[in-house]
């Protein structure tokens, strides 16, 4: 259902890249889909693969256990797929098995969480976590500056604290705020789930009786955060979300919510990753570019969605 909105049907690309080519098997491994964003990743990948008659999609058991994901990738290597798309639980920990794939002559498209070793992947495509934090920071900083608030209380609700992506987002946020002379008053991490978002927000609201701005890293947990805010009846601040879920966009669109913006981190990247893997496996380049081969790395920009531009983004929103 989701992909129809999340992954637009391939427009006939320049250079005829969508013309059926040599038949390829593309292996896919990602963390367990216990989260709206990851679920959208898996679905987008599958949906995009289905659009090509020349692609056989071969997903393996998504898991949150590193050890099991290593095994999963090993099994794909053993199956001699033509290309691998891997969203690792942790880039560092799966680096070795990705190297193994490269060693076996299988090109790896590294999706989002990056392998430290460039030899481990052929192409990296992913979001810009630092940039996401920067975007949120600018939105918050600019707005507070405009309001002329001197010492604003800025609260941050992170995702899973041990993920590098969380740390990057936080750093970007802090760096951007610094340019306005602001800093984060308090931050807590939730676990990317509605419930944890709700719990953390409920307590944070108790800890700070007056808040000026709140950035929540993830729109999934944002549902819980919003519920906590409503329950506490707090309206004195504004909130910025992260990722760009359909829910969040609708809230923004309504105009009556504290949530007034979200910064994107779109799961459509999975669709693109499958397309890249197909091109690489078939030895094609990207039609719009001059080069004969797919580039080594592609970083998506993080965009800021507000009431003004939300219409444009709605079709890309994923259901959390």
């Amino acid at each position: 259902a989701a992909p129809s909105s999340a992954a637009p049907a391939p427009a006939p690309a320049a250079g005829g890249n969508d013309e059926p080519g040599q038949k390829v098997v593309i292996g896919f491994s990602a963390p367990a889909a216990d989260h709206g964003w990851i679920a959208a990743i898996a679905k987008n990948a599958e949906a995009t693969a289905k659009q090509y008659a020349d692609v056989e999609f071969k997903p393996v058991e998504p898991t949150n256990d590193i050890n099991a994901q290593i095994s999963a990738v090993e099994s794909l290597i053993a199956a001699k797929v033509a290309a691998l798309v891997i969203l690792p639980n942790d880039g560092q920990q799966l680096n070795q098995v990705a190297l193994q794939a490269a060693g076996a002559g299988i090109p790896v498209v590294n999706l989002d969480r990056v392998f430290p070793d460039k030899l481990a992947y052929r192409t990296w495509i992913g979001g810009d976590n630092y940039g996401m934090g920067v975007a949120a920071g600018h939105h918050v900083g600019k707005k507070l500056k405009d309001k002329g608030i001197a010492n604003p209380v800025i609260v941050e609700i992170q995702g899973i604290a041990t993920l590098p992506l969380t740390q990057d987002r936080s750093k970007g946020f802090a760096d951007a705020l610094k340019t306005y002379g602001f800093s984060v008053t308090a931050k807590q991490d939730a676990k990317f789930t509605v419930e944890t978002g709700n719990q953390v927000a409920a307590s944070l609201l108790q800890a700070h009786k007056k808040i000026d701005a709140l950035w929540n890293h993830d729109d999934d947990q944002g549902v819980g955060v919003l519920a906590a805010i409503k329950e506490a009846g707090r309206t004195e601040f504004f909130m910025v979300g992260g990722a760009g879920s359909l829910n969040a966009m609708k809230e923004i669109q309504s105009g009556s919510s504290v949530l007034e913006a979200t910064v994107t981190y779109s799961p459509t990247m999975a669709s693109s990753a499958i397309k890249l893997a197909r091109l690489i496996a078939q030895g094609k380049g990207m039609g719009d570019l001059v080069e004969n081969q797919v580039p080594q790395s592609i970083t998506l920009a993080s965009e800021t969605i507000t009431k003004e531009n939300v219409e444009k983004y709605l079709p890309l929103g994923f259901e959390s």
Partner: protein
Amino acid sequence: MKVDTRGAAVRQTWLGRAGATRHLGLVAALVLLAIVGLVTRPGNFATASNLVSILSLAATIGVITVGMTFVIIGGGIDLSVGAIMAMASVWATTLATQSYGPFVMAVCAILVGTGAGLVNGLLVSYGRLVPFIATLAMLVAARGLAQRMSDRKTQLIQGGNKAVVELSTTRVLGIPLLVYIFALVVVLGWILLNRTTFGRRTYAVGGNPEAARLAGINVRRHTMALYALSGLCCGIAAILIMARTTTGSSTHGDLYELDAIAAVIIGGTLLTGGRGTLVGSILGLLIFTLITNLFILNGLNTSDQLIAKGLIIVVAVLLQRRNLKERAP
């Protein structure tokens, strides 16, 4: 006769202990935590809204803890509570269920919870599976079912059914309805455990199943009822979590089983069954909730929170141990 005097002496200590001093260690730990709260965040901790917030946080898992207390006193364990709650919340928030309105949603959550609990009970008492394994299988399967049913999406409660959400937002005397529900479940659970034959038999079944059987108790049926009761509590908890988060989701209640079991055991209930109190479990749960609240009020980062939590658990239990002077394992 000699036995006389000694017996009487023992009795009095025991009675005294059962009353006030039994939970002294836990109460002391709670008071200590409260003092820490007052000292570190004087302006935020002791406010009515913060206390209400603590109780609201405790409500969902609190209801589950009530059921867990019964199961553990009855000699079992239920690892599936969080997953059953998630499944019930998802089932109650599908578009189909939501079309029947809030009342049917609540009934649905309760039926799904009780039904899953009943399956646990059947597996344990008639399938003769070890409780750990039976409920572990249920944990895994219920999460899978919940994911399937929801297509891994978070299901929002729709406008027409805001009555469910109002359990969380409507306040009577400044306290949200869901806290009253929590209190009601605790009181009913206490009565069931301490004032009915069902409660008596729960202790017997957990403490010495063979003796219970010889005394003419239908141990299997009773065991089954205990798991169904735990499932029922999960169903009620599902309603509360739906009210709080305005959603049903397969991710709800992750690791609740560990928290609930820990609360029960910190409360002095033996994992081997046959002994324990509901009041202890609830106190244990409040300690956990208070710890989390204090950490967030003080803006501790997660790593330090974890370290501190480990230490606090040890200290709280040592306090209690000192009071109970129980035997080593």
